[in-house]
């Protein structure tokens, strides 16, 4: 772990994804992209989409009318993560619970709807109930409101490393005594305008246009398959976790997270070595979006840090399709896919030499 900065513990996992709404790890099964039927009229298009479900059937009492799907998923995922962590919020000082939400595109579904209403009625005829729900911070606000959480409420965005950024900021809040528990969320929703943007920019994988079997490994030059969903992690301070174990011995810990680093350029290996303070993790879990593949710079950096025998958990196509917000899913899927433990590195890189790295101790 990073010297002088005590790690915080991940104690709960929740998610809403094409795997469905889930508390805890994600059971492994092959995931195929879904054919888009709602808005495409130009031929077959595919993406990893969340199947519609009734939020109140997963979280009793949850009302989501008028909310963007992203807000709805954040509410469900946060509830499932708290449930998985075994945290009874009625027993917690809610002013000490923070929310950190990462998104690349925010509430783009209702932003699109707001544009539609402006196109139909003019800018003077837009819907007042839609406007506040277009804000990127709306999902984090709803999570605070639903659970009554009065701690810091933060929304961050980064095209490559929003998820990693949220983990770093969340751990920082706990380390600086600004929260005891932080719910970290990361995700995005797919809509027509976003898919069209990807398509016109020629960023999509050929697999988006046909129903051929998916490749086993990603090809950094062949585009990606867009995804949607929200992952949630509960992070707790070491002291709080220890005191809670006295009350609830069965509470699980997934990993401890040290102080990470991210940057938009520079010398990743040098910065990461400095961050690790002499420890050499043998395991690297790839995060990032789109590009990191077996032959990518991520592998080279992992080998530079951990040696040629470093064990690498490859990224999964679904998590790569979440532009910038896939880190939490990369971590959850890695924990779900195999028995791994010990010192590890969550590592993502970008084509412009940007990187994000978090030291982990998998439990």
């Amino acid at each position: 772990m990073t010297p002088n900065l005590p790690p915080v513990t991940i104690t709960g996992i929740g998610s809403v994804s094409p795997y469905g709404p889930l508390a805890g790890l994600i059971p492994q099964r092959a995931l195929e992209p879904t054919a888009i039927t709602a808005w495409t009229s130009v031929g077959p298009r595919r993406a990893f989409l969340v199947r519609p479900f009734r939020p109140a059937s997963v979280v009793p009492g949850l009302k989501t009318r008028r909310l963007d799907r992203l807000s709805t998923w954040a509410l469900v995922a946060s509830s499932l993560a708290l449930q998985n962590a075994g945290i009874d919020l009625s027993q917690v000082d809610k002013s000490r619970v923070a929310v950190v939400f990462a998104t690349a595109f925010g509430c783009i579904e209702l932003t699109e709807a707001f544009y539609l209403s402006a196109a139909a009625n003019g800018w003077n005829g837009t819907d007042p109930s839609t406007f506040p729900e277009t804000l990127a911070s709306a999902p984090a606000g709803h999570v605070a409101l639903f659970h009554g959480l009065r701690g810091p409420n933060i929304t961050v965005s980064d095209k490559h490393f929003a998820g990693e950024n949220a983990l770093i900021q969340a751990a920082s809040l706990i380390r600086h005594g600004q929260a005891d528990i932080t719910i970290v969320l990361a995700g995005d929703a797919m809509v027509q305008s976003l898919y069209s943007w990807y398509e016109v920019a020629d960023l999509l994988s050929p697999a988006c246009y046909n129903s051929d079997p998916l490749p086993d490994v990603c090809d950094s030059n062949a585009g990606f398959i867009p995804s949607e969903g929200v992952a949630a992690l509960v992070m707790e301070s070491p002291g709080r976790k220890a005191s809670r174990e006295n009350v609830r011995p069965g509470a699980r810990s997934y990993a401890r997270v040290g102080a990470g680093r991210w940057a938009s350029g520079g010398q990743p290996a040098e910065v990461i070595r400095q961050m690790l303070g002499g420890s050499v993790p043998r395991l690297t879990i790839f995060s990032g979006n789109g590009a990191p593949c077996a032959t990518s710079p991520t592998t080279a950096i992992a080998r530079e840090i951990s040696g040629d025998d470093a064990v690498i958990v490859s990224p999964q196509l679904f998590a790569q399709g979440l532009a910038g917000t896939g880190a939490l899913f990369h971590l959850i899927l890695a924990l779900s896919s195999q028995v791994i433990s010990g010192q590890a590195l969550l590592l993502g890189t970008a084509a412009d030499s940007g990187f994000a790295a978090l030291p982990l101790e998998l439990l």
Partner: protein
Amino acid sequence: MIGRRFFVTLSRSPLLTDTHKTIVVTGVGVVSPYGIGLGCLQTGMLAGKSCLTPTKDLYPGFEGTVAQVHDSALQSEDFSTRYSRTDQLAVVATRDAMTSSDCDRSSFRESGVLMANTVGGLTEIDTGIAKDPAAWFRRPGRLLRGSSFPISHVADAVGEHFGIRGPRCAISVACASGAMSIALAANLLLDGAAPIILAGGSDPLCPFTLSGFNSLRALDPTPCRPFDQNRSGLNLGEGSAVLVLETLAGASARNAKVLAVLRGWAMTNDAFHTTAPHKEGSGLADCIKLSMEMAELTLDDIGYVNAHGTGTPLNDVAEANAYEIAFRGRKHPIPVSSTKSYFGHCLGAAGALEAAITIMGVRAGALLPTLRLTDPIDSSGVEWLRGEVKRQPLPLAMSASSGFGGSNTVLIFGSGLS
């Protein structure tokens, strides 16, 4: 006497005895309806000049009062065609912040960039996208300009424009965004994430936000009157402010001039309503108390609060209640004003601009009044500043921000280290 008390206050704080844990401001950059620079802002505001003007041309059918940044302020830079107006404002303010600090350009190479905004590049997207997005993006120039729409693009534009390669991201927490970017930058500096962080916010006027606030009936068609009994809403403005933040240890190592000390910061949430603040202002009151605890200050140490003060009926009452609660027990009422009465509510940039104004007040020893405040809200614990600028030493001042979704952020600035 005030100076002596300030020195005593400084010396008892462990935050200030450890130079690695003291966050200082070594540069301030601003682009506002007054023009480029803190000096320009100071001259205009101390003269009591309002930039709010009636406008009809922002979209068909709109009539209202706004404050606009003059286009000439954006002609000083050679912008990429990929930059939205949000990006452009941020780049101009960042240049000004870098110039105002005594760092050479290479000092910023490993810096972080935390840039708040709410609207991103939606300034560049018209309603034509609604019917057929693919066709809209295929039209000449649209893909490039439209690609600036993610809110993170502002931080990327600043980073790329100045060749900065440290950590960068956008913060978007509605109207508390600009202040929160400064608070989060301070946390990251304490973690050693970067040697310097350029933190601030940028938001432009655009049909999307004007239409949204208009639909909520939150806009005052005439110049706003924050904290007045007869207030009837807010005016929107535009601009950007960026602070150069670093640890005192880092600033001392290169003999940098310290403009102000960020003594305390805190973030809370009301968890009350999606758009309305808590009626009693309890979330903001908690935030004020936490920031003062961090700074190890007593109730009487704060000399002025630059309020969120939007001019909406709900916000201003909730905020007055928050000051009553948080400062109860003070010897004298807390002096409060809203500088949104000068150039409107700049949304994601507001908290950063108001941080810059608070620093300006601390350095100049000037407590700015709220303009057009004739019949203030009843509040025995608050001294509503109005009329003339109050000139007095101001060693410590606070800036408060709140936003949709219930987020609050409070920043406390001190005048310096000696």
